[in-house]
């Protein structure tokens, strides 16, 4: 049971980080959502084996088996936070799409400047070497 969840957590982290590194903003958003699930699952896993009720109302806590409620409460808070942030991220991606007309992350301005400068510096040799004409 727990091993399955552990594998699922690992898988979610893998896919999440893979998507996060993509250029398309929608994939980034989905990747972040998956990462959030992975983190929440690991919080849940930290509470010990599943199955028992989180709270026993009775006076004697030793009477029955009880799951640790604290990680569940933390996971709940974390879910709310990731939910809100995902909504913001979506809005941001939409705004970005409105501005740029496409969903891809743009090249960094600084990177572009450095690339042009390098090309200008080495331009002669490379052009003469590569151009067939």
């Amino acid at each position, binding site marked *: 049971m727990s091993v399955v969840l552990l594998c699922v957590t690992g898988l979610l982290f893998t896919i999440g980080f893979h998507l*996060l590194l993509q250029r398309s*903003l929608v994939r*980034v958003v989905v990747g*972040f959502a998956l*990462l*959030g699930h*992975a*983190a*929440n699952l*690991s*919080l849940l*896993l*930290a*509470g010990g084996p599943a199955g028992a009720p989180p709270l026993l109302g009775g006076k004697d806590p030793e009477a029955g088996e009880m799951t*640790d409620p*604290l*990680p569940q409460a*933390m996971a709940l*808070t*974390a879910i709310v*936070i990731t939910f*809100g*942030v995902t909504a*913001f*991220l979506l809005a*941001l*991606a939409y*705004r*970005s799409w409105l*501005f*740029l007309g496409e969903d891809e*992350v*743009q090249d*960094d*301005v*600084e990177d572009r400047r450095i690339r042009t400068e390098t090309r200008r510096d080495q331009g002669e040799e490379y052009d003469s070497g590569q151009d067939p004409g």
Partner: protein
Amino acid sequence: MNIVLPLPFALPLAGAALTMLAWRWPALLRTVSVAIVAGVTAASILVAVAVSREGVVSTQAGDWPAPLGITLVADRLTALMLVVSSVVLLAILIYAVGQGIVGQKQAEPSVFYPAYLALSGGVCLSFLAGDLFNLFVGFEVMLVSSYVLLTLSPNPARMHAGMTYVVVSLTSSILFLTTIALTYAATGAVNLADLSTRTEDLPSGVRTALALMFLVVFGIKGAVVPLHLWLPDSYPAAITQITAIFAALLTKTAVYALIRTQTLLFPHHETETLMLVVAGLTMIVGLLGALTQQDVHRILSFTLVGHIGFLVFGLALFTVAGLTGAILYLVHHIVVQATLFLVSDIIQDESGEITLNRLGGLVGVSAFSAALFFVPAMSLSGMPPMSGFVAKLALLQAGFGSGRGLAYTVAAVAVLASLLTLVAMSRIWTLAFWRPRPETPEPSGEEPGDEPGLTREERYSHRLVRGVTAAMILFGLLVAVFAGPLTDWSEDAATGLLERVEYQRAVLGEDRP
């Protein structure tokens, strides 16, 4: 039970809700916001008074006993950070109000004030949090508000920067959450004081892994090389007074959390060597980056990265002297970095330009802003007798006094980094202020000063903006003037951090170890 402790974050969070309702009345919005942040400053001073009287103070929300409930703790480091941060928060808010009165340069959406107050609340909560999860919540409150602030009055560059910033911050938040889960799985606790008694019993491998996870999480948030790449790309894109508050507080809060977790939870200093190396790298990479830039905001952002290295260096020594230096440096850097960004905003205002190859001759335009720039720039470079000198001296003494070869090397790097800072600052100083203005088409920016064309409101705004900046510089100088008592206070804070007993007793009660 201490009623003062929740005030520094409860006030601004309530204020954020209030100001959101009052969006229709800008004057009311400004007054309420300034009043609330002033209240935060007062509350922080009260916390500091309580700490100086009673030592570490703590309070349990809802009177749940210690490891169960939500704990708020303030020790000397917390109190110092609260006071300095709230003063800077107040100054930048007044500056923003001053800029907003003219209001032609940037649209000032009413969402600024609620977001700013929420950011203040998040920062204060992060300082006061006595358990890991609350620290996470504090960080999230702070970061979510910063996402909003960074993308205020959006343009394509700002959206690009915002996306980078948000995705990187979120990744570190997810890692933080995972680290909390792992810590809980290993120890069964999230309360910092409770954890500090339990990490001793962990296998050393698990402990090192957790220490490294915390280092990565706060390393990303604090822009420690090689996790710094997002910062110089995103901060300069925001409205400058917002960049000032980010530069002053967000990375410093992360460094504060790094100091807190590494000293309290990991008394065997597993990350010592790694942090020393990383500190040296951060200084060099950050300041070399600053030398290659043309945009003043980007230069300042790179120096910000470089100077995080000094803070990590002080922590990595894990000695009272090292931590004292780091705490002094925190105080100095919060004030000075914020001031420099405010001054660069004034420069941009006066000349309509912010890149070095188009700036020039500013000293003729306004000698006053030249003076405004000179003092914090020299303080940042560590020239005596300013606050930067005091803090750097403490750090270097700690580094050379530690008797470790690696620490000597990093201390030497720190001297080099100070020199590079001086070069970067003099570059701005000579190019922007002293050389004749390069032949460019007349800038669109208006001529500054009290010329007759200005309306009364504009003149008032000019004075307010410059007055606040001058007050910030004065505050920076006061740090140097009161270096003696401040060093004593920091030394006590550092001793408390390393000994841990007072902190544990304050939270868990006298009977616990």
